[in-house]
Each structure stands twice: as C-alpha cells, then as structure tokens.
C-alpha cells in the first residue's frame, strides 16, 4: 500500500491561514484548539466540501494520493474521505438502519450484491448487527453515531474525519465509539482524524496531536511527547469553588416527595424523593436516557407529574411554568432552542421583561454582563449568527441576569472549549458566593471535583445522593466516570 500524502496550504486570512500538513496512511490524528480556531473549517477543506459545496475565497491545494481535490467531484472524494459531524441526528437521512447504511452505495449505483456485501461488512465492523431492522428514531445517541460511522464506511473510503464525535455521549457509549475507531485504525489501517476540545479522551488511540490557533498550526506533537494539561481545566480551579463555604444556607428550597413523571402516559421517573439546599452546587449524573433531562424539565412543570413538589415550601406541582421560572431557571442542552430575540441585548432582556423584573435592571449591569462574556461587540447583532460557544454564553447570561434562586444547566459543556468552560465556572462561583443554588447535568469528569453533592439517576430511579466521596461506590459500579486515577 502506498502512503497517502496530504499537502495543504491555504491562505484565508480570517479562518485558516497558511496551513501545511502532511498525513500518512494509518495515522490517528487529533486536532484541537479553541472555539473559532478554524478546526471545523479545516475538516470541511480536508473532506472537499470547501471548495465544492461551500462558498468563500479559497486558495491552496489538498492532495490525496497525488490528486488535487479541486479536480475531483464531491462524489469521487466521498469514496475516499468521510466526515462525521458532532450531532448524529443530522447525518441520518433515512428511516431505518439498513437503508441508512445502504444510502451511500445506492448512490454509487453499485450492483446489488456489492451493496449487500458492503452493508454486512460495515455493520459487523461497528457491532450494529442486532440493530439492523431498527427505525432510526428509536436509536440512542451512541447508536446513531455508530450508524453514521457505518454508513460512511460503506462508501469504501479509507480516511475518516470526525468532528467531536463523542460530545453527546455518556462514558459507556463513548467507549463503544472509541473502540470502533480503534478497531478501524488498527485492523483496517484507516486514517482517522478527530477534532475535539478534549484530546485526552483519545489518549490511548492517537498517534499525533495537532493544535490550531487563529487558523494556523501552533503545535504538532507525536503521541509520546504530548502534555495534556494545557487542554484541561485545572483541578485547583475546580476545587477552589468547592471549598467556598455555603453562604447563609437555607434547607430544602426545593423538595420532591414520591414524585413521578410521565411522558405520553409512560412513567419515566418514579418515586423521586429529593431535597435541595441553597448555596450549593449539585451535579446530576447518570447514563444517557436515565431521566436526568426529564427530571430537570419536570421541576418546571413541563411534563405530567404525580406526587409532591415544592419550591421555597410552596407547592408548585400545579403552577404554570412561566410562574415557576422566576425562582427556577433552566438552561437547555441546545442553545439554538432558546434564543428568541433579534438582537443580543434584547435577548438578555427577554426573560426579565416577561417576568416583570426589568425595572431592576440597569444598563450598566447589562453592559457588565456583556463585557464579562465577551459579547459586547455583538450587542446589536442578531444572536442567530453567533458561534455555538457564543450562543452558549448568551443563554447562560440571559438567565443569570435575573439571578433565579435555582439555576439548572442541562449539559452546558457540550461542544465548549476551555475558555467557555471556565466562563461557566465563573458564573457558578458568583452564584455560590451569593448563596444561590446551581444544578448541573453533565457527563464531564470535571464535575467530580466541582460539585458539592451528586444526584445519581439510573433507569428512572434516584439511586444515590450525597457528596462525591460518599457516592463513589455507586459511580464506580455504574461506570459513570473514569475517575480512578484522579482521586
């Protein structure tokens, strides 16, 4: 087999400038860098979407096995290189697993026998054999990501590019995806390029780490020489928040008793009895599909529920959501779903004006929030045009602006770089100092050194509540975190 050579130079002043890279067959490369450093653009260039599909000024050349991508069509490139996106939902375009994997070969107009051959090979390579007749709507996030992988493999290519493939997944699902990648890399000698904010996830797999900043390569390391600490949030900054003493703590500001939640007449959560105190940071953890998000939503009465639920001792089980919102803020997983207004400034005022709290807000306070979150320059621009990370910061401050007593953050760290992570930490620190409660739902391992108490869900039941050391046995037995070495 011949070596694959990538030769790449590009001078797009804003996003990518003068990148030169050479990649050999069978390498496992991780590309990392801050939000906006051009990682995703680089992936689009490598996979040929730039310049074939996406507009812009593009100069330079990408060469695969001696052929420049511009001289090929996308259909031809796709038989060599495949790109997996961050959100698996958007790359599944058919109604069931079989058709999804068949989609590519069908387009290539291959003979039927060849298609069937490829499907069965790809399904077994990704361990999806049992799922073959499943509808794509019934798959879990991890399964969807593996289906996306299989459907690209069916194109018969030998280079895979993955853009944050595991950020939506819990530790077990992530491990499955990683195992699949490792198998492809080692046994089929595929070239794998992963883009991620957390390179340490791929510690055991990668051969090379490339660091991008402002569109240029600032670091290129081989496996042995990599130091992961610059890409991690330091344990000390997490612990610093943990050791803050609770400020005039009130007990049981939120309380549920034998609380059950239903979705379309199916019981999702049963008999949750929980007490939450003010001035602390809580972490809700559990496998994908264990009911964490459902629980958070139901605290604001978004689902049918049974049992007792109270905030500040007042029964809220029958209160409309928009009235509970004043005391209990909720930040959703996907920031796109909760941006409503036409300008960033109006967006910040959205909730306060709905809740009639805007009279207390001064321009200075808003200005300060914008400056703290580095969004000042976008004050009058439409929020839909912001980057993913900027949108996340905006959704956080647009709820933090009216300081609800309880703030629930649902997977706030997905797709976020270290800078945004630390921004959220600052908000959490400020809230703790002011005696306000925060609840974080996340798979990130950093939670272990950050939160005061863990709340653990498993298959719709509350299976543990307590400080991280108390619940450690449960975490270990349920494989929730790979934390052994950090304690």
């Amino acid at each position, binding site marked *: 087999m011949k070596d694959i050579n990538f030769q790449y130079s590009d001078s797009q002043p804003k996003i990518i400038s003068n990148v030169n890279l050479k990649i050999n067959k069978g390498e496992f490369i991780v590309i990392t860098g801050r939000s906006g450093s051009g990682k995703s653009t680089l992936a689009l260039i490598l996979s040929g979407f730039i310049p074939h599909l996406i507009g812009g000024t593009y100069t330079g050349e990408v060469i695969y096995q001696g052929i420049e991508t511009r001289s090929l069509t*996308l259909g031809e490139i796709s038989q060599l290189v495949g790109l997996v996106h961050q959100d698996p*939902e958007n790359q599944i*375009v*058919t109604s069931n697993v079989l058709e999804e994997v068949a989609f590519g070969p069908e387009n290539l107009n291959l003979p039927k026998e060849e298609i069937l051959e490829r*499907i069965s090979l790809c399904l077994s390579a990704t361990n999806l054999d049992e799922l073959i007749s499943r509808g*794509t709507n019934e798959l879990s996030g991890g399964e969807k990501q593996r289906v996306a992988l299989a459907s*690209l493999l069916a194109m018969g290519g030998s280079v895979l590019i993955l853009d944050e493939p595991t950020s939506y997944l819990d530790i077990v699902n992530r491990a499955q995806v990683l195992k699949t990648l490792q198998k492809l890399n080692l046994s089929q000698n595929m070239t794998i390029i992963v883009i991620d904010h957390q390179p340490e996830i791929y510690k055991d797999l990668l051969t090379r780490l490339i660091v991008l900043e402002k569109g240029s390569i600032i670091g290129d390391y081989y496996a042995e020489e990599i130091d992961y600490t610059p890409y991690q949030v330091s344990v000390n900054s997490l612990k610093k928040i943990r050791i803050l003493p609770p400020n005039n703590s009130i007990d049981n500001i939120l309380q549920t008793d034998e609380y059950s939640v239903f979705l379309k007449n199916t019981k999702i959560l049963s008999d949750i009895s929980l007490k939450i105190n003010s001035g602390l940071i809580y972490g809700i953890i559990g496998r994908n599909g264990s009911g964490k998000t459902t629980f958070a939503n139901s605290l604001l009465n978004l689902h049918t529920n049974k049992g007792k639920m109270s905030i500040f001792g007042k029964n809220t089980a029958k209160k409309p959501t*928009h009235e509970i919102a004043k005391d209990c803020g*909720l930040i959703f997983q996907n920031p*796109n779903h909760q941006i409503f207004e036409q300008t960033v400034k109006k967006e910040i005022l959205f909730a306060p004006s709905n809740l009639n709290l805007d009279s207390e807000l001064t321009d200075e306070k808003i200005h300060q929030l914008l400056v703290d979150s580095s969004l000042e320059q976008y004050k009058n621009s439409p929020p839909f045009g912001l980057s993913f990370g900027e949108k996340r910061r905006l959704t956080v401050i647009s709820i933090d602006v009216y300081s609800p007593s309880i703030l629930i953050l649902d997977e706030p760290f997905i797709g976020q770089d270290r800078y945004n992570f630390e921004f959220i930490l600052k908000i959490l620190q400020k809230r703790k100092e002011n005696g306000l409660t925060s609840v974080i739902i996340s798979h990130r391992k950093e939670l272990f050194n950050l939160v005061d108490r863990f709340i653990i869900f498993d298959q719709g039941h509350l299976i543990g509540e307590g400080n991280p050391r108390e619940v450690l046995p449960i975490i270990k037995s349920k494989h929730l975190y790979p934390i052994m070495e950090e304690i």
Partner: protein
Amino acid sequence: MSGAVKISRELIDVKLEASSNATNPVIKFIAIIAIAVYYFMITDLYRMYLLIFAILIYYNFKALPYQVAKPKYRFLIIFSLLIVIVQLAASRQGDLVFFLIPKIFNLGPFFPIYQKGLFYAILFVGRFWGVITISWVFIDSTNPFDFAQSLTNLKVPYRLAYSLSLALRFTPVLNNEITVIRNAQQTRGLNSTPNSIKGTYNLLKFTLFPIISSTLNRIKDITLSMEGRAFGLYVDRTPLKEMPLQILDIIQLFVLILLLMLLLMF
C-alpha cells in the same frame, strides 16, 4: 468475522423480503383517490354512510398508526357543523321539515329546515367524512417511506421522491424540537396562553425564530452528510428495496374502479 457477516446477511434478506408482499403503495394511493372521487359523485346517502360508519367503527376499536396524532374530532365536528349550517340556511326548496326554533307565543317560528337543505347538509358532511375516513385507511396501512420509494415507479425523479422521505424522516425530529422550544419559552417566563393579540403574535414570533434558525443549521449538516455520501452522483441509483408494480396490483385497481363505476350507474 465471517460468521457475523453471514448473520447480518440473513437479517438483511429477511428485512427486504418482509416488505415485498404488500400492495404497491402508489397503486393504493390511486385507489383511495378513486374512492374519494366516488364520494364526490354519488348522491346515495345510504351507500355513502354505510362505508363511512364501517370505517369509523373499525377505527374506534383499532388504534391509529404511530405517526398520526389522535384524530382531531373537535375540528372535524366544528367543520361539519359549519357545512350543515350553511346548507340549511341556503336551501329553501322542497318540503318544510321542521322549524329549528318552534313557535313560542307570538314569536317565531324561526329557522325553517327544508328537505333539500337537510339533504345537502347530510350529503356534503358525508363527502367530508368520506374523504377523511378513507385517508385513515391509507395512512394506517402504508409505510410512508415505502410510498416515497415507490413514487419512482411513476417516473418521479429519485431526487424529488427522496425529498419526500427526507421530509418524513425529520417530521418527528422537528415536531419534538417545536415542543422543546415552546418549553424553553415558558422557562423564560413567556405565557403560553396569552390574553392579548400582541401576546399571540409574540408567541408565534418567538416560536418561528428559533425553529427557523435551528432548521437552517440542520440543513447545512444534512446537505453535507448527503453530498458526502455521493447523493446525486449518477443518473440512477440502485434501489436496495425494490417495489415493482405487480400485475396483480394493477388488476385489483381496475376491478375497484370498475366496481365504483358500476355503483355510480346503478
């Protein structure tokens, strides 16, 4: 390794065979259109309502398929009432049947109901329910994706037929997304049952903006995903799951249409 490959090959074959026995969806679709046209042509109320009630009773015992929300009986009844009112008010010929509001002392009687008006009211409501119920039969018995696929039988270009199955694939996803957005509005204090016109407009605006922006994001990803797998590279694509037009299906369709025409004449 090869053992696993064999197992999945068998599974694929089973899966492909399972769907090849049913009637071709396009033929079925033409058949229900024929029945709907029949409903619009007959004036025999007995025949009309016999079929409607048969279907209604059947679906009263059988749940409708997953993708269909429970029938909006409220809307159906309001719309039917509207038809009835208009027909009763407009037709003034034929025998007087009764008065809607009888004579009370010296007042009234009001709203005379004429035979012809009553006939038309029942006829037009029958047409409406006829079309609705026959549509249920089709939706219940057809996998929408098979329907999209079999459109290529009618020489619909595969790129266009494919966009129908793409639309259907994302229907539940987008539906779910609208729910999430409406939840998000409420968690930021927006009242979901506003008591002013402006509030209603805001509710619309604040739902449209986020759903459009997130759909635009989705479109980019989906396009890349399809182009990245060579969609539209060649003139044809190999359909793995074939849905050929079977002679038997076409004969069935002819028999049905013949039957309907006979029913129309006698």
